């Protein structure tokens, strides 16, 4: 099929229009907005205003840099814990011999994936707050229930509640392709099982770990509800900052600059890791 006729392109038209009209064009408008000066008291930028980089240079101040650092740090923690805990579980599910147990695991994890993020956020907030185990947990960890440390901890817990099922399900497919006979062979050659897993299963799971990490990290970096509710104003992610810019201040240009930076950072990251992992794999 070397030559593609116009007729064959017809089924692609609606999706094309959708992505161009409701994604590409609006993103260009965001980029345009981010280069306009902010006029206080005026919602949105003025038409015909001169172009400026002020909205971006403003983001370099330490106050803003901290929002980005917090977002990336907490996302990194949640997604790393997610894959570290998720890999053994993915391995167990993938190599589960009883198809009924396997199915139960998968149904359980997919249900969690489908469950509204808001519901899980509320559940974590309830369990980690004063009505649940909050007081006991905070005093056990030596933190204040209303302190920043405890807020960070609950945000990470909230992220983890979403990341874990995602990471496990993502790692399931690549882990399934691991040949269990390799471990058997190592055992037959005299290696104890734990060592066989450590020296054979772990290195072969790099691809699975990377896939799980990308999915988890992408989710965390763009998380909105979790830091908004569980952060209690003490922890704020970049997405919350964008919302505040638009909602409270009506400062569209600054929100637009933040959106562009967040989008660029997460896209570079996702495709960067994807590229790296495919390179590693093809070598």
């Amino acid at each position, binding site marked *: 099929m070397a030559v593609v006729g116009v007729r064959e392109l017809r089924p692609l038209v609606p999706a094309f229009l959708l992505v161009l009209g409701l994604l590409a064009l609006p*993103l260009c408008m965001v980029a345009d907005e981010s280069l306009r000066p902010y006029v206080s008291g005026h919602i949105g930028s003025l038409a015909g205003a001169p172009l400026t980089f002020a909205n971006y240079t403003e983001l370099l101040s330490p106050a803003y840099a901290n929002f980005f650092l917090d977002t990336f740090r907490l996302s990194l923690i949640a997604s790393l814990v997610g894959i570290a805990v998720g890999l053994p579980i993915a391995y167990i599910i993938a190599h589960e011999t009883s198809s009924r147990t396997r199915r139960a695991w998968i149904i359980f994890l997919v249900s969690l994936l489908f469950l509204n993020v808001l519901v899980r956020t509320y559940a974590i907030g309830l369990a980690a707050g004063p009505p649940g185990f909050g007081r006991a947990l905070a005093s056990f960890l030596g933190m204040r229930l209303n302190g920043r440390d405890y807020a960070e901890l609950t945000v990470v817990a909230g992220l983890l509640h979403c990341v874990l099922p995602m990471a496990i399900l993502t790692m399931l497919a690549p882990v399934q392709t691991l040949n269990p006979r390799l471990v058997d062979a190592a055992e037959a050659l005299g290696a104890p099982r734990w060592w066989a897993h450590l020296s054979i299963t772990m290195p072969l799971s790099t691809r699975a770990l990377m896939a799980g990490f990308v999915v988890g990290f992408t989710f965390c970096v763009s998380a909105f509800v979790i830091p908004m509710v569980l952060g209690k104003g003490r922890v704020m992610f970049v997405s919350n900052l964008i919302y505040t810019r638009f909602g409270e201040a009506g400062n569209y240009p600054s929100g637009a600059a933040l959106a562009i930076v967040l989008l660029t950072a997460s896209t570079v990251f996702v495709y960067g890791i994807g590229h790296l992992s495919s390179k590693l794999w093809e070598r």
Partner: protein
Amino acid sequence: VSVAASRHVTQSAGLRRAFGRRMDQFGHLLLAALITVVLAFLLLPLLMVTVMSFDAREYLGQFPPPALSMRWYERFFAEPYYLQGLKTSIALACLTMVISTSIGVSAAVGISMLPTRAQRILTTLFLSPLVIPGVVVGFALLIFYSRAHVDNTFLRLLGAHVLITFPYSIRTVLATLSGLRPSYVEAALSLGATERRAFWTVTVPLLKTSIGAGAVFAFVFSFDDVAASMFLSDPTAYTLPVALLSMMYANFDLVIAAASLLQIVMTVLLMLVLDAIVGMDRVVGTSVYKA
């Protein structure tokens, strides 16, 4: 000498094996502990919400509740603010499901007819709404709508929801299409069917399950969206999650627990539907996470 040496070797091998066995046992124990902790972490908060939603107390008190009642459910169904949101959410999710699935299936079929290189580029382009943060989508659409003078709030929300859900149909359908043997269609063609007829009578029936799965995904993720909807909602039209979030921000009322349990029940029911039409193993194995 050689006898002593060989005895020494067997002894150390035995020791090593014993150590290995001990480590294996330890490993199994560790694994069992890990599974228990993970299950507790994933399930306990949800169970707590379930129990607390039946709390008879007037205020949000310590878990567990001393007595049970349906108080919070009655409140939920007596509150027009939530019911309005629920109505909008359901209407929006149903419409989104129909539009997203049509656009997605059509695009997937179109992609499958292209050369491999073009396939890869278009798939990346069409799946990009899944990678872009919801807040960015919401914010971008907000600016676009106000510049393009799209003033109907429901229409604004519908555009956003279709954009963020149509990639799921592309994924599920494309996964099945790429596994389909071309000989099926070729057989139909060689028996005299036109291309159009072969498509409708051979390809489409084989795609039924993946179209169904894509539709369920579209419904669920439209119903669940908060980030994008937050920017586009206003008092004339808002979704249930937006209503719940704004209440949650104000106070941790147990009406939200009641609403949460209703959504948990809905999710479980949808899961059963999905399992019935597709079979869970296939959803995971072929569609959800293999882009």
